[in-house]
């Protein structure tokens, strides 16, 4: 890397002409797979960036700081990677996570040691729970100071081991690039998940004559892609003879890019479909066979179907307790076929009679090729349609009551195209967004499911916007539905959206409550609204304007459509503060540990 050495000899020259360095870096990154010792001397940090470039990373989200500075300095030379400077590391982690969800390749988050790394933790844990591909790179104090409680030192490996798919402590400038490439590759291979590489400053500053090789997962990692043929045959026979078969599409269907295969399978064999929340978008919700998503706040018809099915064909789901309710009463009449790339998920929470380990799409192809006749499920399909009529997702919206949040969700859905990306925070607004938006495409629903992280919505909208833009999809809309409390947790990221002029629209469904907590207090704590209500709420439209974004406040039904239109037309970040009915609750609701079939439709049924 002689050019850089020359450039740094003359600081002024380096500042004046960064361009040649860009080219030099790009050339080096282009030597795909050549793992050779070069006579050029580079640094560990440059190896880190080269590894990211070889992995075809195009964006990174992060916050600067002492121990990560060498990596940022090397990033200065990269023309391939667009860096988005976030306001807070939690925002960087969520943005990287959402980038990965939308782009289908790992997002990258950067943070310094100590507080930088610990601020990433919530976002890493979130990605881990939702199996989102993401690579976190954290600075660390120099190796010889590790363990001395040095300034901004945290045992990042120790802290993140339980919440990463795997993590790495880089110990050598010669191999740090390989570790980064491996971590990136591992994050997106098999069952996706977050990985982390901890980068001591002496390792990133240290010199090396070696370029990293092509990114590849570790040798010990070989996920099984196809299920055992004999097991497939046995499962196929079970499908043929089922009278009430039901497909359950989890997030794994989306992550495996198997939505198309899964749709074709359901339609060809006439099997009704429910999804999990992460599985939203895997099957068009306006299709006759689709019963939308099941679980605590899932539709009545999905929960009826899952309660009465005699064969549940579950794909890429981990049977979370928010889906199953009480395990004792979950799909109690059903044999279960469980297709998953992670064998540790099969029979973990709910026993599967038929275990098919493999990639969602490949195993569905295997099954499709083995089934000799579709199950005779006409009566069952009619039953499912009847449940759709019996338990409609209609909400009351009397003129004399405040604006209903569901109406706002439907107004946005009506005003936008099917490829619109919806992100959310966590709480009531998240449930309304997922219930009243009609999803039809995979990778359009970006939310925090397993960890339930309030504050996920805005930074994930930033990550989603960047992912869409990087793919040349500038025309896609990105809508963030947020709650007032959820928005308050990460709203500083509006500064980033303004600085980068990102076209996102934040719709705050503001009920001036920690609404889901208030709903639970009303139902289960005798309406004792401790720490769930406040007697005033900031003016989010004004906050947005102060950040440099557009802001509106909406109170009335007739203001909704024109304001939505105006916000969508605005080419930049905008925030609409919808003051919605604070008394509105989320239904249906299966109480924690309850039976899915006993979902409540009103509070007095709880």
């Amino acid at each position, binding site marked *: 890397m002689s050019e850089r050495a020359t450039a740094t000899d003359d600081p002024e020259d380096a500042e004046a002409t960064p361009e040649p360095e860009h080219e030099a870096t790009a050339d080096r990154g282009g030597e795909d797979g050549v793992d050779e010792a070069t006579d050029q001397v580079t640094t560990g940090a440059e190896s880190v960036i080269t590894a990211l470039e070889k992995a075809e990373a195009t964006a990174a989200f992060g916050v600067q700081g002492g121990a990560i500075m060498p990596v940022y300095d090397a990033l200065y030379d990269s023309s391939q990677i667009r860096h988005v400077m976030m306001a807070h590391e939690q925002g960087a982690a969520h943005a990287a996570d959402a980038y990965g969800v939308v782009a289908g390749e790992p997002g990258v988050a950067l943070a310094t040691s100590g507080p930088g790394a610990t601020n990433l933790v919530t976002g890493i844990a979130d990605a881990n729970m939702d199996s989102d591909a993401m690579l976190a790179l954290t600075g660390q104090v120099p190796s010889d100071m590790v363990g001395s409680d040095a300034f901004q030192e945290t045992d990042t*490996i*120790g802290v993140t*081991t*339980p919440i990463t*798919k*795997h993590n790495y*402590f880089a110990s050598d400038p010669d191999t740090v690039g390989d570790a980064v490439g491996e971590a990136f590759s*591992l994050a997106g291979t098999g069952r996706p998940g977050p990985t982390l590489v901890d980068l001591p400053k002496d390792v990133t500053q240290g010199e090396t004559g070696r370029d990293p090789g092509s990114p590849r997962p*570790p040798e*010990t990692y070989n996920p099984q892609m196809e299920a055992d043929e004999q097991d497939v045959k046995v499962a196929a026979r079970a499908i043929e003879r089922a009278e009430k078969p039901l497909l359950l599409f989890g997030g794994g269907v989306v992550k495996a890019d198997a939505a198309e295969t899964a749709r074709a399978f359901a339609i060809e064999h006439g099997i009704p479909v429910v999804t999990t929340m992460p599985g939203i978008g895997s099957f068009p919700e306006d299709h006759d066979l689709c019963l939308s998503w099941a679980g605590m706040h899932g539709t*009545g018809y999905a929960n*009826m179907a899952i*309660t*009465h099915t005699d064969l549940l064909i579950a794909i890429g789901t981990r*049977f979370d307790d928010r889906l199953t309710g009480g*395990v*004792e*009463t*979950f799909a*109690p*009449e059903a044999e279960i076929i469980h297709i998953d790339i*992670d*064998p*540790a998920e099969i*029979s*973990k*929470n*709910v*026993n599967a009679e038929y275990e098919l380990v493999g990639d969602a799409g490949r195993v569905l192809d295997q099954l499709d090729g083995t089934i000799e006749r579709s199950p005779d499920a006409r009566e069952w399909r009619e039953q499912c349609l009847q449940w759709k009529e*019996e*338990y*409609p997702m*209609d*909400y*009351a919206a009397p003129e004399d*009551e405040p604006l209903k949040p569901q109406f706002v969700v439907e107004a946005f859905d009506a005003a936008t195209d099917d490829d619109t990306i919806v992100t959310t925070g966590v709480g009531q607004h998240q449930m309304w967004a997922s219930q009243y938006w009609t999803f039809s495409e995979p990778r359009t629903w970006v939310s925090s499911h397993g960890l339930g992280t309030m504050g996920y919505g805005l930074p994930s909208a930033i990550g989603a916007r960047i992912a869409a833009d990087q793919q040349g999809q500038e025309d896609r809309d990105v809508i963030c539905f947020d709650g007032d409390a959820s928005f308050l947790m990460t709203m500083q990221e509006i500064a980033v959206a303004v600085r980068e002029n990102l076209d996102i629209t934040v719709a705050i469904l503001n009920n*001036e409550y920690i609404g889901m907590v208030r709903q639970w207090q009303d139902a289960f704590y005798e*309406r004792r*609204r401790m720490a769930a*209500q*406040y*007697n*005033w709420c900031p*003016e989010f439209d*004004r906050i947005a304007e102060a950040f440099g974004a557009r802001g509106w*406040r909406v109170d009335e039904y007739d203001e909704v459509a024109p304001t939505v239109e105006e916000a969508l037309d605005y080419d930049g970040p905008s925030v609409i503060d919808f003051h919605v*009915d*604070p*008394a509105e*609750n989320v*239904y*249906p609701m299966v109480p924690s540990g309850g*039976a899915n*079939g*006993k*979902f*409540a*439709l*009103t509070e007095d*049924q709880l």
Partner: protein
Amino acid sequence: MSDADRTPDTDATPEDAHVSEDAPDHGLKGPAPEERPHPEGRRNAQGIRIDPEVEAEPEVREAVLSALVTHEPGVLARVSGLFSRRQFNIESLTVGATQNEDFARITLVVEEPEPGIEQAKKQLAKLIPVVSVRELDQDAVCRELALIKIDGEHPDQVAAVAEMYDATVVDASAESVTVEVTGTESTIDNAIDTFERFGIREITRTGSAALERGPRETAAPHSQ
């Protein structure tokens, strides 16, 4: 909108600021829970479908698991962290080098019902540095080691008991005798019981190390 509307109403009580508790809760339409059909089937706590009349819980048993792992720092922390985090009952855990310097072997003794043992094996196999995992057969060779420091007042008798257990006196002073016992867990338990009469000062025990009998592989690089 006037600015007066935007000023926080600091005098307002929370009750004033919000809809009364009697605000209508419209909910959704449809048959109430008790009006719906409910299946009679049930699952047990492990998610296995059961006959509600019988409802037997699976019995806990002991299993010896052997894991071949890449020999790198932090592997033991990953394995022990996994077992505590997921609440597997673990009796013992040992780790040591193998004939191949790239690999180490971890031997775990767990006490779980059948589904728990299966889950422990799968979670272990899922760790990236874990190359392969096997549950060993009932007749596998399992040995542990104990060092027992005993009061030195009756050295001859201690030596005699040591001989009974094929134990070795590894240290002796005027005040104490330390013996090394190797054997199965129960052999060591028995030896400790027997030495008790002389006064035991300190004990340290390893966990179980185990290998399959005969040519059967314990957990080899490609035996997953």
